[in-house]
């Protein structure tokens, strides 16, 4: 926020290009970062943000272009070389070793040791100090990272970055897995760091965050820099959106169609659903044409509730009925058979077949439709998938592409496409816009609304309160495994929801 004195910028990247087979991810990108600033990198899904920062952390090598560090050209040939200069990265996909403890992960590769022997106690002590500094003293350094929530894992990644002598910290969509409280905490840490002169490169699709924390902005579009060093204060949001998308879209929610949605029998009816230690006594109705949102803090148990409804977890009590038919407990196949679909929270591990082509990912739940006597007509599989990808604007095009090579947001669209194809009666969406850019968000919102309008019962889980309220017809607030509020979305506002999830002592 304060202008820095003049010396050469900490980092300059000039004319960086990077081509993957068939895709030019970067076609000449410039970036200039000064010490002590929060430099935001903006761009649509697939614009090349993650690729750029992977070059910066030497995870990839650029095809062309040069990198200047304090004015001197440098070659960042290995991750270690980047780390030595003080570049630390928190990747979009968390890069922790799940089987190691928090401490072990923090010091991985630069363990505290004497003569090859690890100094467990000293390392624990330092880990605890780092976690404290990050405002998360409650994380047990001895805990295995695989047992932590994504949010806590994010904190561990931060602690790891800070365990180095960091001069440039790169955060690739750190807030995607955080709730508002935790985002606030993250910002506090970021401000502490910039005050010490550390430079931050910050990537996020949430423009309001950028307004709050950013100093300057670089905008990428289709692998080239289209906006350079824009001052946050001086650049209005519509300008940013226009730079990113070439269009002007507002962060708007489609209008509720308002018609008699709650009439007749609900399509999805949940009664007394319980899962010991996680949630209990959950009642839930979703009518055809209605969007019901589940709001709550990360860890409140919303994902578990919807996964149990879907049969991915076995309930200890309660019933789930779809169109009046009771579903067998703990059977996803039964739920899918009855017309229920789920876009899971973790698209990479739960949603996608990463090494298979897009069309196979899309048709996997509807194979019967393309099969005659068990034999698949893969031509029509491809055609239908092409249509869906086109309608969702998946980029780059081509349904033979391997899912792994798509950017995060585009991967999310593929999972959505799977259930669009299936034509569900009930669609459950867990964090449907995580990592999705502004343009695509609006598309996804209207798509969800369109589905509801066509009679589908939609259940949405989101950690963005604004999104739950804007998208849903009715909202349920969940706290510690119990529904603490239920009512029309119009009748409740953001601060009220926050009150409920934090304190939760009203009906």
């Amino acid at each position, binding site marked *: 926020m304060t202008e820095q004195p003049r010396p050469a910028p900490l980092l300059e990247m000039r004319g960086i290009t990077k081509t*993957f*087979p*068939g*895709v030019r991810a970067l076609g000449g990108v410039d970036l200039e970062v000064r010490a002590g600033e929060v430099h935001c990198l903006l761009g649509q899904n697939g614009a090349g943000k*993650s*690729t750029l920062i*992977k070059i910066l952390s030497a*995870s*990839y*090598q650029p095809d062309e272009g040069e990198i200047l560090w304090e004015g001197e050209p440098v070659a960042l040939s290995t991750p270690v070389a980047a780390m030595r200069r003080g570049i630390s990265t928190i*990747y979009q*996909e*968390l*890069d*922790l070793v799940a089987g190691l403890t928090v401490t072990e992960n923090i010091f991985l590769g630069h363990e505290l040791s004497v003569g090859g022997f690890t100094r467990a106690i000293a390392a624990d002590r330092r880990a605890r100090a780092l976690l404290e500094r990050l405002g998360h003293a409650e994380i047990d350094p001895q805990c295995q990272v695989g047992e932590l929530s994504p949010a806590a894992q994010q904190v561990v990644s931060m602690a790891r970055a800070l365990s180095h002598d960091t001069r440039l910290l790169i955060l690739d969509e750190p807030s995607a897995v955080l709730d508002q409280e935790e985002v606030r905490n993250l910002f506090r840490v970021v401000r502490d760091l910039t005050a010490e002169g550390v430079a931050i490169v910050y990537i996020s699709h949430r423009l309001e965050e950028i307004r709050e924390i950013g100093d300057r902005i670089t905008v990428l579009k289709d692998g080239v820099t289209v906006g350079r060093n824009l001052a946050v204060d001086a650049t209005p949001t519509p300008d940013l959106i226009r730079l990113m998308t070439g269009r002007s879209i507002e962060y708007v929610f489609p209008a509720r169609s308002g018609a008699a949605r709650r009439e007749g029998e609900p399509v999805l009816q949940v009664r007394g659903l319980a899962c010991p230690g996680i949630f209990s006594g959950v009642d839930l109705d979703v009518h055809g044409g209605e969007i019901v949102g589940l709001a709550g803090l990360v860890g409140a148990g919303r994902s578990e509730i919807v996964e149990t409804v*879907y049969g*991915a977890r076995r309930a200890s009590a309660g019933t789930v009925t779809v169109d009046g038919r009771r579903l067998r407990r703990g059977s*996803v*196949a039964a*739920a*899918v*058979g009855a017309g229920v679909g*789920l876009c*899971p929270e973790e698209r*990479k*591990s*739960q*949603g*996608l*077949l*990463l*090494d*298979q*082509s897009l069309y*196979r990912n899309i048709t*996997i*739940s509807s*194979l*019967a439709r393309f*099969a005659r006597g*068990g*034999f*698949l007509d*893969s031509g029509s599989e491809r055609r239908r998938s092409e249509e869906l990808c086109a309608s969702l604007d998946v980029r*780059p095009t*081509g349904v*033979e*592409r*391997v899912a*792994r*090579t798509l950017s995060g947001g585009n991967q999310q669209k593929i999972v959505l496409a*799977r259930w669009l194809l299936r034509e569900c009666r009930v669609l459950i969406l867990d964090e449907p816009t995580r990592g999705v850019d502004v343009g695509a968000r609006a598309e996804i919102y209207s798509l969800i609304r369109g589905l509801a309008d066509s009679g589908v019962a939609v259940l949405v889980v989101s950690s963005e309160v604004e999104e739950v309220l804007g998208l849903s017809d009715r909202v349920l607030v969940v706290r510690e495994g119990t529904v603490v509020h239920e009512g029309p979305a119009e009748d409740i506002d953001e601060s009220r929801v926050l009150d409920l999830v934090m304190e939760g002592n009203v009906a």
Partner: protein
Amino acid sequence: MSHQEPVSTTAAPGTPGALPPGDRAEGTRGGPRAPGRGGGAQRLRTGMGRNLGLVLALALLCAAGVLTAGDRFADVDNVLTILRLAAVIGVVSVGMTFVITGGGIDLSVGAILALCSVWSTTLATQALANDVHWIVIVFTAVAVGAGCGLVNGVLIAYGKVVPFIATLAMLASARGLAEIISNRRTQIVQVPEFRDFFGADVLGVPVLVLLFLVVAALGWVLLNKTTFGRRTLAVGGNPEAARLAGIRVQRHTVMLYVLVGVCCGIAAVMLVSRTTTGSSTHGTLYELDAIAAVVIGGTLLSGGRGTIVGTVLGVLIFTTLSNVFTLNNLSISAQSVVKGLIIVVAVLLQQRLAERSRT
């Protein structure tokens, strides 16, 4: 597909937090691929690049055969000999391809084959087959194989025993049982119709070779053209995602092990007809041979990608190899050393070629 199709691209070294174990096992495990280099998964995708190395390796072997043994190698009878030798292990390997593609492994194939061979040639079965029809022998072998596969599958899918361990246990048990049933004696087949049927030729092609071709063709169709095959790839590629997509992963897993069990049953029938015996020593170490053929063929050891054509090529490479050695009167020891070298060279060659075909 245009030629710069990303399908044949390298995997993203930058996003490997999410690398499926599958990919890791081939590319990264025990040493990550260099940045910017391809992982196994996509690299070998196109039919051409995928099998080129294998075809080349086989061609080199044949060239070596012709050079060193001339007409004795390039002779119809000799080719049929190679194919007959390939047939039994080939059928087992086709089954193994499914299990491995589906994310499992089966160490018990050789022992199951032995058990099938023995059970179907006990005197009681043979007496039955004599009275009724020799098909009783075939039916018994296949049923025993399917039963063993079912036990494996249930232990793995529902008992959650790691496939390696469950099938290792089956290996010990099935071979022990085969010894008990046969009293460790070679069971000689007395039913002449059985021997006549499987010993016959059709248009100069031995029935055994035809059987192998049929099994391989069916396997290819099943893996590439049916919902079953598609689900196998999904279950092997990401079982959790497959489950959440509505696939009955456990049931499917059981079916895969039953399938390989059935293949062992068929292979047992073939071996019984070939040797005219059932024996508890049949099929020793087939597990390693089959897995080697499958993996050399290009199926990912960790699941999610499988190729029947590759498996067949892999089997042919190994059988041709031992044929060429024998034609040249080479010692078994030298054979082993060269076999090891050829395995490595074939794999390295295949990788380099596949990489080149990408760029």
